[in-house]
């Protein structure tokens, strides 16, 4: 190995933007494809949310027709989950996993590209259901039968059928992704990177993707039976034919509870990556934090019934699932305390990503407390299917997960685009998001306690006050996305050129030029010699670290 070839390998990528529109197999390209496409759908889902909140700013059903409202909230939920949050996380996985573990690419690059291209396909399928006669699916993202198999339009092609097909395809894409991520993490780590030298993001991604592998088959099977009931007259769930509608609820939640961990675990990973960087301290309790992910996995698979306490489950089951749900608070609490331990006595830098992490943690703790309340059967009986639940889960999903995703985007933006994002716009984006999210979602809790059901297009006047606040918050959230888009576009086009390691962070990805070369380290994969997050310890992360840093400087 001569040092000339060594630094030649570190030529940054100079590709054209056209490759983002092609069947490219480079995980970094696919990652950006996922993220950009996901945000396209985020805007559509957000627009629908604005219509929902516009309808709910007054008690009467006056903005849109009731059937339209039902279609809109169904599509909002479905788009946000299947076309925004899962794809955006897969995008981060694609960017971060190979670069963080020193792999040249994913284990199955073509499978990876196929998994990605399925997203615009089922996305188009899903959105096209707005234009079929009879309108899109209207039975909510849960699509509980019998409502979801009523098919009032009577035709073979209908919104609900398209919905089920799209969700099943999304499952196929996610399984392809999961196989790829799990294999890559387990088989393609740089020499020396034992499991306990892996960055936490890889631990949480591994845990999340294992859940996909266990849970998705249940959802896909359940959805297939739903499609048979809807389109071919079978009676898996149809009571008149001897079926049981509650059976579907078990299939559905057996996947969809774990799905919330598929969403939140990578966000835990992001927090665990970013708090150390911006506090200049190692992650507190690394091993506990890593293992807690798998404890959460295990527990997450045995709690699904907490979503259907009122649907007719036996008392012993209620008690069992209450206990198991509450237990999840323990590994989750371990993580929260570990982050507090990390920032404690740190040297904090309140950059945009750090602000998003702190805000996200704040919201997540709040969501955790309402989550414990929801796990408590007698309280859940009162608030389930009310706005309390909508509030709780938007605190998790917008308040914590989306905030964490924004943090990640600002943090790794320079690495993968080669440009620095603007701090001022970023901070404005943070402030609007934090205030908007709290104003939007906090009022939903009193509404739920007072007994306002979710999914209603009109409501009794006593609920008006809090709904007005929530709607104002929603519109603010809508506005909050403008500085974000401005920032992303303008800094990508003409932002300041990014150095290899602008945040002075420790991690294999920061040993690469910004943006990295197509095959990352190429033939010069470093040998990892210490744990990640060695802030303040002075230990080098890899053998010959100085040579890598030198090579970066020379280019």
């Amino acid at each position, binding site marked *: 190995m001569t040092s000339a070839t060594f630094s030649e390998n570190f030529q940054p990528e100079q590709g054209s933007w056209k490759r983002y529109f092609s069947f490219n197999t480079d995980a970094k390209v696919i990652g950006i494809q996922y993220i950009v496409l996901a945000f396209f759908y985020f805007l559509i889902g957000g627009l629908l949310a604005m219509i929902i909140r516009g309808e709910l700013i007054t008690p009467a059903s006056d903005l849109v027709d009731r059937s339209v409202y039902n279609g809109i909230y169904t599509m909002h939920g479905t788009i946000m989950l299947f076309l925004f949050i899962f794809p955006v996380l897969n995008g981060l996985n694609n960017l971060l996993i190979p670069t963080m573990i020193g792999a040249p690419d994913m284990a199955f690059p073509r499978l990876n590209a196929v998994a990605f291209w399925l997203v615009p396909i089922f996305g188009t399928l899903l959105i096209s259901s707005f234009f079929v006669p009879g309108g899109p699916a209207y039975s909510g993202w849960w699509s509980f039968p019998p409502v979801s198999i009523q098919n009032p339009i009577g035709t073979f092609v209908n919104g609900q059928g398209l919905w089920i097909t799209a969700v099943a395809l999304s499952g196929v894409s996610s399984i392809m992704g999961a196989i790829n991520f799990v294999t890559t993490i387990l088989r393609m780590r740089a020499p020396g990177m034992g499991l306990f030298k892996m960055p936490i993001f890889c631990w949480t991604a591994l845990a999340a993707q294992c859940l996909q592998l266990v849970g998705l088959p249940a959802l896909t099977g359940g959805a297939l039976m739903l499609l048979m009931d809807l389109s071919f007259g079978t009676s898996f769930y149809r009571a008149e034919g001897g079926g049981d*509608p509650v059976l579907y609820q078990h299939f559905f939640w057996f996947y969809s509870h774990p799905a919330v961990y598929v969403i939140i675990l990578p966000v835990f990973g992001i927090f665990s990556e970013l708090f150390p960087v911006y506090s200049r301290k190692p992650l507190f309790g690394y091993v506990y934090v890593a293992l807690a992910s798998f404890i959460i996995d295990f527990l997450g698979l045995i709690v699904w019934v907490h979503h259907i306490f009122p649907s*007719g489950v036996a008392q012993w089951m209620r008690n069992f699932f209450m206990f198991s749900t509450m237990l999840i608070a323990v590994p989750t609490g371990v993580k929260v305390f570990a982050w507090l331990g990390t920032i404690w006595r740190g040297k904090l830098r309140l950059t945009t990503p750090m602000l998003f992490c702190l805000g996200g943690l704040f919201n997540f703790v709040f969501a955790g407390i309402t989550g414990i309340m929801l796990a408590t059967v*007698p309280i859940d009986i009162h608030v389930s299917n009310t706005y309390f639940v909508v509030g709780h889960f938007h605190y998790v999903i917008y308040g914590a997960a989306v905030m964490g995703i924004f943090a990640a985007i600002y943090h790794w933006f320079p690495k993968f685009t080669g440009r620095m994002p603007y701090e001022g716009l970023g901070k404005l984006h943070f402030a609007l998001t934090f205030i908007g999210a709290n104003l939007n979602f906090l009022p939903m809790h009193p509404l739920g306690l007072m007994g306002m059901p979710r999914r209603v297009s009109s409501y009794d006047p006593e609920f008006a006050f809090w709904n007005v606040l929530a709607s104002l918050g929603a519109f603010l959230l809508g506005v909050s996305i403008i500085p974000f888009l401005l920032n992303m576009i303008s800094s990508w086009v003409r932002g300041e050129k990014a150095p290899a390691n602008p945040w002075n962070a420790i991690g294999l990805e920061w040993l690469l030029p910004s943006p990295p070369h197509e095959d990352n380290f190429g033939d010069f994969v470093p040998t990892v010699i210490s744990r990640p997050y060695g802030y303040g310890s002075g230990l080098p992360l890899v053998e010959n670290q100085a040579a890598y840093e030198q090579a970066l400087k020379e280019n």
Partner: protein
Amino acid sequence: MALAISVVALVAASWWMGQQAYHWMPVQASTAAPLVDGLFSFETALGTFVFGAVVAVMLWVVVMHRADKYDESDAVPIEGNTRLEVIWTVIPLVVVMAIAVYAMRVNTTLGVLGPMEHIHMADAREEQGGFAGDRLPTEQVEVISRQWSWEFRYPQDHVSSSELHLAVDQPVTLRLVSEDVIHGFFIPAFRLKQDLIPGRAINFNITPTREGRYRLRDSQFSGTWFAANQADVVVESEETYKAWLKNAATQPLQPGLSDAVGQYEARKKLKNPGWATVPPAPPPQVNVPGSNTLPHDA
């Protein structure tokens, strides 16, 4: 010292929030309500304490531990502390298990009060639901939900109504039946909720404890007019209740409350009636049509 003061302040604030929590709920109108509210108040207090403590730490760090402007150095590398980690695993474990045990007790009490008794637990023959009124046990009220109306039948008294009337402090068994999709029987003032599953009849016991007029809401999404699928529950004294039944029996049958039917008809006349919808079931034939615009207590 400062720490002790803050902890005391936080405990006081948490206790206060726990008391406030009672006011966030609708009035208590059933035997279940005080139990649920007590538990909720307890969890609110506990939650306030945890949230307050975490946020206090975060704020403290943000204010006190900021890096100086030109300070590029790292902080002291503290990687962990096994003792601390054990403590903050055990404390949450104990706390949540304590909550769970408390909740299980409430659960058991509520179970005695009666939600969730499937008929099939008692008698397999009745699992299918939809039985004729004359085979029901005494003082049972049949609750029938359809897309999108509620009907309440008092088989003994040959009364049918769009309004659920109950005698205060009298336990009653409701027999919940759905004729089409899943509906949710939810009375916020009672803090009780139970889904109505098509193909099953579910026995559901409640005991109202406060006179007044309360809203019954559908809590399981049931299609286009889901939001309008509401009815009133009238809790009155034993005598008033008896008198109401007696009077109701003399009233002729007439179409009961169904907002969906009216809105559906109006919608059909529109040029663009909107997306497809299941036609509403005809309004139930009842002796007492009820109203859903009268002022209600909760």
